[in-house]
């Protein structure tokens, strides 16, 4: 812990002292039941409190019935929610962790189909994601909205929260009022900077009035909308922050980045650098003296410490990092950094599932979202140790071995290759996705600490397995690429698959026709990989656009920006021959060598 001079120092936020600088910041979980806090919520947040984070900010709690961005949104404006809040805060307060409620109105970034009410906005306009024309808020609407913010705030206080965070970030009505890109009003709520700020000030004043002097209230400010057509910039955000600090009604500034125009910045993928919003936070922090939170892809305690040390933020938001490993803070404190399961920003469980309306999950941590069943402390050593033989030391085999060994079974793990990791190692070769190897790296680190009989370069057969006299056998040999995805007479060296390309087993020529049937990492990444090596790549895909599966993962834009491959949609691919790929429009010859 002595390594961390700042990360584990407390931070005073208003009247509350947060024991350390790690905030499990607001994010969707879809865990609610009937717009209320559910048991799964409580398990979910408690797991993180147990793991040692200093502060938890809940997912957005909506303040008004007109706002229903997604079916799983939790309400804060009806008194019935208070018992749920209390159960949640009591569970968190059992640990040395504080919990803040995030109050929000999504404004025009909401779905009228769900709420059956008009979508409110500062001006008529359409959000790129929801594509629904919003209703310009009338004066009465504005007053009502402020009242509802105040009402919800009182519910939060009664619910036992330690503080309130108002969402002014990527998805919020107040931000829409602030931004010249969405606020086109010409009354006292629009136009100049001061006028655009007015609604914001009213909301803050209403909430402050409702909760009293001493209760911590802060905002999640948009550090830069990065709007293509003139939204808020970082300089605007600095001005707003400085202006709001002057009011003396706020206690902290949390930051977010981007809007739904550029969701890939809100939830940066593997293609984004770590801690990419830090310069923006540092800029805001240089003009205010209140604590400033820093966010986005901070997945490592050393990184967090260096941000604090460089004075670029006062609090570190970790969301995906703590989804992947709730115990990150404790492990860092105890100096067990090796044990931290780092988020690799694959975005498959946490963000991909959200977009599709499922509950939260994590590719690496099966317990995420199901802490009640699989969370910490549920893994119990077994009564009678058994002998478990696992065939294949890819991620699945390693995880299986890890869990079995933790349960004190005797584990024999066979791997035919010289190193463990299986296809995860191949996946890491793909351009821009090196981080995916983090999965294996962590598993190897864990497995090495356990008492596991790992036998490398050992291709097993039935006799070998039986010779071990196992009580259980787990076959985790992984998948093989399909050799003939469509009809025809073809094959290497003219036609090769991505595995062969990535592992260097077979080479392609300089002109490559790339057929991508699923639009996921392996296809797009391999196309990039080839293009990086100076080949001319032409991508065909049956989907509407290249990398279609990357969309929900917020990885598409950045992947595409890195592409040097040309692509075209190919609705149908007919049977191929050795040298030609017939397409629906004409055909293409395969270069022969």
């Amino acid at each position, binding site marked *: 812990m002595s*390594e961390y001079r700042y990360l584990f120092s407390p931070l005073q936020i208003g009247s509350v002292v947060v024991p350390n600088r790690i905030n499990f910041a607001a994010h969707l979980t879809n865990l609610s039941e009937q717009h209320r806090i559910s048991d799964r919520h409580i398990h979910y947040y408690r797991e993180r409190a147990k793991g040692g984070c200093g502060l938890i900010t809940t997912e957005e709690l909506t303040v008004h019935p007109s706002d229903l961005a997604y079916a799983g949104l939790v309400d804060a404006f009806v008194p019935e929610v208070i018992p749920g809040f209390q159960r949640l805060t009591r569970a968190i307060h059992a640990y040395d962790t504080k919990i803040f409620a995030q109050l929000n109105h999504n404004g025009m970034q909401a779905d009228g189909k769900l709420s059956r009410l008009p979508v409110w906005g500062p001006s008529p306009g359409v959000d790129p994601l929801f594509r629904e024309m919003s209703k310009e808020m009338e004066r009465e609407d504005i007053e009502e909205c402020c009242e509802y913010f105040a009402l919800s705030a009182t519910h939060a206080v009664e619910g036992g929260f330690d503080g309130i965070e108002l969402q002014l970030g990527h998805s919020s009505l107040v931000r829409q009022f602030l931004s010249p890109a969405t606020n086109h009003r010409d009354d006292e709520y629009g136009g100049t900077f001061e006028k655009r700020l007015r609604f914001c000030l009213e909301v803050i004043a209403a909430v402050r009035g409702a909760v009293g002097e001493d209760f911590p209230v802060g905002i999640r400010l948009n550090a830069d909308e990065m709007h293509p057509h003139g939204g808020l910039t970082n300089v605007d955000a600095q001005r707003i922050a400085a202006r709001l600090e002057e009011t003396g009604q706020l206690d902290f500034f949390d930051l977010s980045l981007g809007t739904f125009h550029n969701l890939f910045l809100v939830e940066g993928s593997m293609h984004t650098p770590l801690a990419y919003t830090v310069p923006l936070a540092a800029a805001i922090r240089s003009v205010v003296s209140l604590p400033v939170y820093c966010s986005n892809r901070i997945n490592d305690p*050393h990184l967090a410490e260096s941000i604090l040390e460089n004075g670029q933020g006062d609090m570190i938001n970790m969301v995906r990092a703590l989804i992947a490993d709730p115990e990150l803070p404790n492990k860092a404190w105890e*100096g067990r*950094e*090796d044990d931290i399961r780092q988020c690799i920003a694959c975005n498959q469980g946490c963000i991909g599932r959200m977009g599709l309306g499922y509950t939260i999950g994590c590719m690496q941590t099966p317990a995420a979202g199901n802490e009640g069943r699989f969370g910490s402390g549920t893994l119990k050593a077994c009564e009678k140790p058994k002998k478990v033989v696992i065939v294949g030391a890819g991620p699945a085999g390693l995880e299986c071995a890890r869990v079995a060994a933790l349960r004190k079974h005797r584990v024999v793990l066979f791997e035919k290759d010289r190193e463990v990791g299986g296809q995860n190692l191949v996946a890491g070769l793909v351009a821009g996705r090196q981080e995916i190897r983090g999965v294996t*790296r962590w598993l*190897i*680190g864990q497995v090495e600490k356990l008492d596991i009989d790992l036998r490398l370069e050992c291709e097993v057969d039935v006799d070998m397995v039986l010779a071990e006299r196992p009580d259980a056998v787990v076959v985790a040999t992984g998948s093989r690429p399909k050799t003939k995805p469509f009809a025809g007479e073809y094959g290497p060296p003219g036609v090769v698959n991505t595995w062969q390309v990535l592992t260097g087993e077979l080479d392609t020529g300089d002109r490559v026709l790339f057929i991508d049937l699923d639009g996921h990492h392996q296809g797009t990444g391999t196309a990039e990989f080839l293009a990086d090596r100076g080949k001319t790549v032409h991508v065909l895909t049956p989907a509407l656009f290249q990398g279609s599966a990357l969309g929900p993962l917020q990885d598409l834009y950045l992947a595409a920006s890195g592409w040097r491959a040309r692509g075209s949609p190919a609705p149908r691919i007919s049977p191929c021959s050795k040298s030609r790929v017939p397409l629906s429009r004409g055909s293409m010859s395969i270069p022969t060598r």
Partner: protein
Amino acid sequence: MDAGMKDIWLYVQHRDGAVEEPTYGLTAEARRLRASLGGGGLVTAVVLGNGPVAGLEEMGFHGADRVLVVDDERLAERCRGDVFARALAGLAERHGPACVLMAQTAETLDLGARSAALLETAFISRVMDLQVDEDGVLHAHRPVANGYLFERLRCTDPKAPIIAFLPAVLAESVPEGETRAEVLAESMGAVSLDGGARVLRVEEADPGELDIEEADIVVCGGRGVGRDADFDIIHRLARAIDGSVAGTRPIIDWQTLPYERQIGQTGKTVMPRLIVNCGISGANEYTAGMEKAQVNIAVNTDPRARIFRFADLGVVADIHRLLPHLCERLEALRGHEPPAAGKD
């Protein structure tokens, strides 16, 4: 105060006829300070030395309005803090600046304190932040208690205070303006050289012999290198890149290196510009002594060694296979002129 009184001075550090980097960062501070003091006055760079200094007019691009140059052969030796201080103090007495800014180095710490003594004014070192309140009073933030705490100071000294900024807080300055600074030659006045101390000679440091705490480049070997003859490769590498040799505790225990070359909790704490860690796994006891190095190269056979967490460049290789090649290349670089890797 009249406008002339509000000149902000900055002390230009130069070496071998070129302005050194932290100086430019001072111009930004000087401009900020001038603005908060009311906008009058000139940002004036002061150059003391002997011989021409290039790029003084270009200081204007960074925001300096004029440059005062004292070119005098009495200022030939940089270590003569007393002479420099008398020159600076004399100049300040004549012109009366609002304050004098410096970037803190070993040299300016000496110069600032001496000039302040001569001018009977305040000198604030290690400043991280300088602000002016509405009354025109300077407030400075600086670290105390070995960097654990910070203090805010209020400087009420009526005379021009001397402020030394920590170089780390000075931003890199990008030239902006197009105006060249006006360069004015100044005379040094009557300062006699004798009396006091006389520099007999300056001994250049042999990089290999240099104390590891002072060395710019440190090559450190650990248990993975081996003892005695095996360790010679580290000496060779150090010679090849003008580095100083250090070791971890096992190396010291084996008496391959003397105790004063030990880095770590039980040894010394180093802050070189470059440290090359060879065959070191990176236990906490060791890294506590080197984590402040600016650039960190680690060579180890174990790709999961903890040292790689600290490394800007990690090399997974066997020391005794890699280093001979590397030394050859480096030796070739200094021996024969066309540097193979320097072509771009």
